């Protein structure tokens, strides 16, 4: 079943066709990796779908409904969440507060001016549980700005996850962390996504990560989709390997 699809989605910046009439779809329950060199249009595509940017033309369908003109707020309510390439957490708030805010928002409680946030035990407990799943429980009281880079990356994903989306976009969840840390971070994220039955689209540069963790790979190049297939298919696709991976397939 198709959860999300774009039809001839386009976005240009001046003469540059960042996303050039792209037909892209995500099936329910899959873990899809979006790959491509810098400037291929991956992040722009995600920005269009998540509502950070408005497309020049084309439509976006989520669960069959047209969401092209929907506000960011409504897209989140309908079940689309994202994390960001450059870590964006709320630095001066504690890790727990970061998650609590997402839970309050999901439950439409952020308009409450005259009740103590800390007195909502259900929200607090849920936020603690999310931190536990991400292995950040002992960081709960620490300000997010003071956490290590890998922890901040996880917290960024955890904030999006706490919104309980059906479709989660993760823009380079392991960028900026050491190679050694990448696998543990991906292990945590993929196990949570799979056990939560969340459909996820991960933008990733590291091909080892891509081949190991994804069900399907979509390769982009200069604003268009170059290839679409299982990790094995992509690995055997000479076109992709020469254009994107810079190597000829030897194995």
């Amino acid at each position, binding site marked *: 079943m198709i959860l999300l699809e774009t039809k001839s989605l386009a976005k240009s910046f001046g003469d540059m066709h960042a996303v050039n009439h792209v037909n892209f779809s995500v099936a329910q329950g899959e873990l899809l990796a979006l790959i491509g060199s810098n400037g291929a249009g991956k992040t722009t595509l995600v920005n269009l779908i*998540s509502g*950070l940017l408005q497309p020049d033309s084309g439509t976006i369908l989520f669960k069959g409904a047209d969401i092209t003109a929907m506000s*960011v*707020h409504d897209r*989140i*309510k309908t079940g689309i*969440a*994202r994390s*960001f390439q450059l870590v*964006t*957490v*709320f*630095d*001066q*708030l*504690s890790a727990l*507060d*970061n998650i*609590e*805010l*997402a839970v*309050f*928002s*999901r439950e439409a*409680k*952020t*308009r*409450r*001016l*005259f*009740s*103590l*946030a*800390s007195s*909502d035990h259900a929200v607090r407990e849920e936020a603690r549980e999310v931190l536990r799943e991400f292995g950040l429980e002992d960081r709960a009281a*620490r*300000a997010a*700005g*003071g956490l290590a880079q890998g922890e901040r990356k996880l917290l960024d994903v955890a*904030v*999006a996850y706490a*919104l309980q989306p059906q479709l989660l976009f993760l823009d380079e969840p392991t960028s900026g962390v050491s190679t050694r840390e990448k696998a543990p971070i991906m292990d945590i994220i993929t196990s949570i996504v799979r056990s939560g039955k969340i459909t996820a689209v991960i933008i990733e540069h590291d091909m080892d990560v891509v081949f190991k963790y994804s069900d399907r790979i979509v390769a982009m190049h200069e604003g268009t989709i170059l290839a679409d297939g299982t990790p094995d298919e992509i690995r055997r696709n000479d076109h992709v390997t020469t254009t994107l991976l810079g190597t000829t397939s030897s194995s």
Partner: protein
Amino acid sequence: MNLISVSPKQALLYAIPIAGVLLFLPLLIEPYQVTLLEYGLIFAIAALGFNLLLGYTGLLSFGHSAYFGMGAYAVAFIVKYLNVTSMEVFLLGGALASAGIAALFGFLCVRYTRIFFGILTMALSQVLWSLAFKFYWVTGGTDGLRVPTPSLLGVPIPQGEEKMIFLAHRYYYYVLIIFFLSAAVMWLIVHSPFGKALQAIRDNETRAEFVGVQVWHYRWIAFLVSGIYTGLAGTLWVPLNGLTTPDILHWTFSGKIVFFTVLGGFQTFTGPIIGGVVYNYLETYAVGHTVYWQMVLGVVLVLLVLVLPAGIAGTAERLILKPEKGGLK
């Protein structure tokens, strides 16, 4: 440093002794000293409102004189046109007037941040100042408008009681109660889910949007609450001063509100309160001792920025709390 969350119990632990001191102070010090403290508490309310925007939402307003002035002029107009001198009517009128103007100005300003926000708030406040300045048949121009001693809860000033005594006792307690209510409500607001959302907007506007917080809308509500607080301070200030003039609408008065808050420390809840009270003593002392008082305040401001950027409360907090807890820059 961050706006460290203190549990309600801890907050009461600090608040109760302070409340005790403030409650008995008028019995111990001279009436004139009491009125100085009163001005300080009123400025503290203004700064508490201002800091909801600066410290918690990350917006530096240079136009809060507009709301203080609206609170004050609303009282003067109630006296002039309705011939009413009830303090409760003043408070209601001041709150409505400052809410109205904050709703309008806020609507225009919350689309902007940083210097653009600051300049726009300042420009709008200057419009009110020039109106008060030019429409002298309504506002009294630079002569201002006089405001008599109000009746409190329907009780007018007793026959034969000196105005100074009234202001330093009955009116002091009236101001004190409103100060405590204001501080308690503001404490609740900044610790509410809404308050967390404001802090999220301050830390990262785009991400706040992607957590589902409607940034402009929340900023507007913060602006409105902030304006009402500063407006209430203006309303309380007028009977004490006995007169309202365009000075309090001028952008330099907005600068004073910024000064209160930075002096006390905008990254703490108590900073604006301490700043309002201390600034008032500082200015009164400087004015009383030298004609170069503005230079004294200027030097204080420079030293503050260079030596104590965290303000009085921020620095105290840093000294009291163990350094290992300050894992932040």
